[in-house]
């Protein structure tokens, strides 16, 4: 029953992928090969891969550096920077690109801020948290005892850092940088606004401007292949990461004393924060006032917000309906099938939104015409893209109500339904609800699939921002950008808290004093020898 539901959910999530491959095979592989092996495609591939590599190297430097500084050194204000360093994640890439473009004329009135290197800069600044967060979490969770052992064996601080500490977090570093590459490959908003010809932009242009369906499909399959290669690499780092999982009890980290160099660290952190957060702030300050005072602006923003709300709500409902069976199966029955299903959901998540949108357009036109041009097809695209967010929430929520609790409930004489109502439901609802909220916010921010699939006449915050930026009406775009940043800040906060880097209490300390009253360890400690002696 559960398995059937999970299979169905995964099948729905994989519709775009399957449909795309089906179409490609139908058209014939030799023809596909001919279309792929052209100078234009080679150029697109080179640009996309190069952009991915440059950005991931940038993310490595900024992400690992920030993570080390805030978790392991005495750099001034490290508690504050631990939060600030995660915040760029709250700025959707197309909003970031808009804010940079819209203030570029302050520095140079002639040269436009566009092309490969500006795109690499913007993507690095807003992607590095994908490296920063896992690495910082790994550094916080890493077993300090290993470093202490290295020091006791005569290694200095630098030698310990490079031979023990960094190898410990290597899986997080590798996984994070591959995530960054995936993100760059899938990014559509920033590269279109900054006019870099990567796969996503070329696919969109081919489809909307040239009505070149076959060309768009060909590029989509190629991008899909590239994505799958990166995904395979990423899942390998995940597997090898298991052996590094720390079992030691974590104690508060003794930060390294950087001496005078801590001011250099501070300068670096400040520079990143100023670029990643200062520029958007500057743009907002400059344009929001003008944008809001524009005639009809409030009505337009309200209409777009209503559009965003309605499609996001539909997307959330569909996503969570699919996520519950997959998540429950993965949490309660750890079999090969459930692992594969969960993995499939994640594969769908890594597909570029533009590819998912495009394949659902074709799917709607040829197979599901009644759905085409309705909110539900867009909701399906959201479900494909954001199913893993929902699944992760359901798995986490199911962990709040382990089967042993239900068994105890039943053994105390309550039937299954009563146990579900009094135990399982109250324990899982908060988690599932939080997951739904995350999915909802992700839907609000989504751009490429929304552009391709929204019913005619329906505008959302994201599409309005994109259109206004496309014709350089920055004042008009600013209110949308502001709203989107506010909306996106919420899930970022949740994410940052979950990694344990930000102020949240990591270990709930149990009040030990209570022990003294009832357990009286003073007396028992004397008996400990006897107890262990008999146990052999």
């Amino acid at each position, binding site marked *: 029953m559960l398995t059937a539901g999970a299979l169905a959910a995964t099948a729905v999530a994989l519709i775009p992928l399957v449909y795309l491959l089906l179409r490609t095979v139908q058209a014939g592989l030799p023809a596909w090969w001919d279309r792929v092996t052209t100078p234009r495609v080679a150029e697109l591939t080179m640009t996309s891969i190069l952009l991915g590599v440059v950005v991931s190297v940038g993310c490595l430097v900024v992400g690992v550096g920030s993570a080390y500084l805030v978790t392991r050194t005495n750099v001034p204000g490290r508690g504050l920077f631990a939060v600030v360093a995660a915040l760029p994640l709250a700025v959707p890439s197309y909003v970031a690109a808009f804010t940079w473009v819209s203030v570029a004329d302050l520095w140079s009135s002639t040269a436009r801020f566009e092309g490969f290197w500006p795109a690499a800069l913007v993507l690095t600044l807003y992607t590095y948290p994908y490296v920063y967060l896992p690495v910082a979490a790994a550094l916080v969770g890493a077993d300090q005892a290993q470093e202490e052992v290295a020091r006791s064996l005569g290694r200095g601080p630098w030698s310990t850092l490079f031979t023990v500490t960094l190898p410990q977090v290597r899986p997080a570093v590798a996984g994070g940088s591959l995530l960054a590459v995936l993100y760059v490959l899938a990014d559509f908003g920033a590269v279109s606004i900054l006019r870099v010809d990567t796969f996503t932009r070329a696919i969109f242009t081919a489809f909307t401007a040239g009505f070149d369906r076959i060309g768009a499909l060909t590029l989509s399959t190629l991008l899909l292949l590239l994505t799958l290669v990166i995904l395979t690499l990423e899942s390998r780092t995940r597997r090898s990461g298991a052996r590094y999982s720390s079992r030691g009890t974590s104690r508060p980290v003794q930060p390294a004393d950087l001496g005078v160099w801590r001011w250099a660290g501070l300068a670096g952190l400040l520079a990143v924060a100023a670029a990643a957060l200062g520029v958007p702030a500057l743009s907002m300050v400059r344009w929001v006032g003008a944008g809001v005072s524009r005639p009809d602006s409030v009505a337009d923003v309200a209409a777009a917000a209503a559009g965003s709300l309605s499609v996001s709500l539909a997307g959330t409902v569909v996503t969570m309906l699919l996520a519950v069976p997959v998540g429950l199966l993965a949490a309660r029955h750890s079999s090969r099938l459930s692992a594969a299903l969960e993995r499939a959901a994640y594969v769908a998540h890594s597909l570029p939104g533009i590819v998912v949108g495009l394949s659902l357009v074709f799917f709607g036109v040829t197979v599901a015409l009644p759905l085409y041009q309705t909110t539900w097809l867009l909701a399906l695209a959201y479900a494909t893209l954001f199913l893993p967010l929902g699944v992760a929430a359901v798995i986490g929520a199911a962990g709040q109500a382990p089967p*042993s*609790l239900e068994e105890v409930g*039943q053994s105390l004489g309550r039937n299954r339904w009563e146990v579900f109502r009094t135990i399982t439901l109250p324990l899982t609802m908060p988690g599932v609800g939080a997951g739904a909220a995350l999915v909802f916010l992700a839907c609000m921010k989504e751009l490429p699939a929304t552009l391709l699939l929204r019913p005619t006449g329906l505008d959302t915050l994201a599409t309005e921002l994109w259109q206004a930026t496309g014709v350089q009406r920055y004042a008009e775009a600013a209110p949308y950008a502001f709203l989107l940043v506010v909306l996106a800040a919420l899930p970022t906060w949740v994410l940052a808290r979950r990694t344990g880097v930000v102020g949240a209490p990591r270990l709930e300390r149990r009040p030990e004093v209570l*022990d003294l009253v009832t*357990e009286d360890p003073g*007396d028992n400690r004397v008996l400990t*020898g006897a107890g262990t002696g008999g146990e052999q």
Partner: protein
Amino acid sequence: MTAVEIVQVGKSYGDVVALDSVDLTLDTGEFVAVLGPSGCGKTTLLRCIAGFERIDHGRITLGGRVVTLPGVHMPPHRRHVTVVPQDGALFPHLSVADNVGYGLGRGRGKTARVEECLELVGLGGLGARMPHELSGGQQQRVAVARALAPHPPLVLLDEPFSALDASLRTGLREDVRRALAEDGATALLVTHDQGEALSMAHRVAVMRDGRIHQFDTPAEVYRHPVDSWVAQFVGEAMLLPLEGPAGHAERMSRLGVVRLRPDLVDLAGGPTALVRPEQVRIVRAGTLAPGHAVPGRVAQIAYHGHDALITVDVPGSQTAMVRVIDDPVTAVEPGDDVRLWVEGDCTAYPAEAVAAESGATPLPVVG
């Protein structure tokens, strides 16, 4: 009166036999421990009794009611058998009092019974607390109170102390044993901890590979294990091959004369005797000792404070283990020449039975 009757219960997961014809009976008010190494099937047995798993063979009867047969399965909530899981499994969203009262109906006397059960486990007045405000030991006490509250015909305890610090364990074991006894509950404890099983239970069932090897009082299980595996599982054991004709109580071993239990006098064909380190007496060479004492030299001493386990090299043998109560007057040092002899009646096993068991034993064997 028989509270629980488990008859030839069998359970397999695919090709893996978890329970292989298990028989066990508990009298009302009795505390029985199922003792076995991990993977022996003891937790499966508990889950079958609670109704979380279905059985393949046999039957289980609770208070005269058959609750499970192959193909007939009374659901857990109608069996009234309560469990205390390893981690306590308190409902995190309910207060301590609501946890304890979960298995009680809405009727009058609920509040009184909840408080009574909390008093039993030494947590009176803490009903308003939430589970996360309690220490690990206190949480486990609440789990016990919750299991006792509905007056169940049987309480199942699944290694309830193994997650706790050793210093808490001893006191909590005693308190739980007392609470169960005061409430008149019948209880089945599953554990891999020999000390826990021997010190808490009225009777101990030693389990291995899905079978009960021995079901008897703690003293019987320790002093007269039915086979050499049980002997070595419940405590340190030396297995000494014996020489001498059948029909004689006193036989020769490498530790001198060993006297057999009267009922084993006729054992023939070179049997093997079980000697516990406590049965071996040790004196310095040159001190008065029986004529059959054998010479040896102290190799090492594992000192535990109240007692010590002394390893002695015996010529012609390998080593012997001797447990002595700590005594500063007669204490020996490594390198001292000593004399050893065995006291008390010993259990012995036919040689072929021991040979069949050997190889599966992690504990030191003299032979």
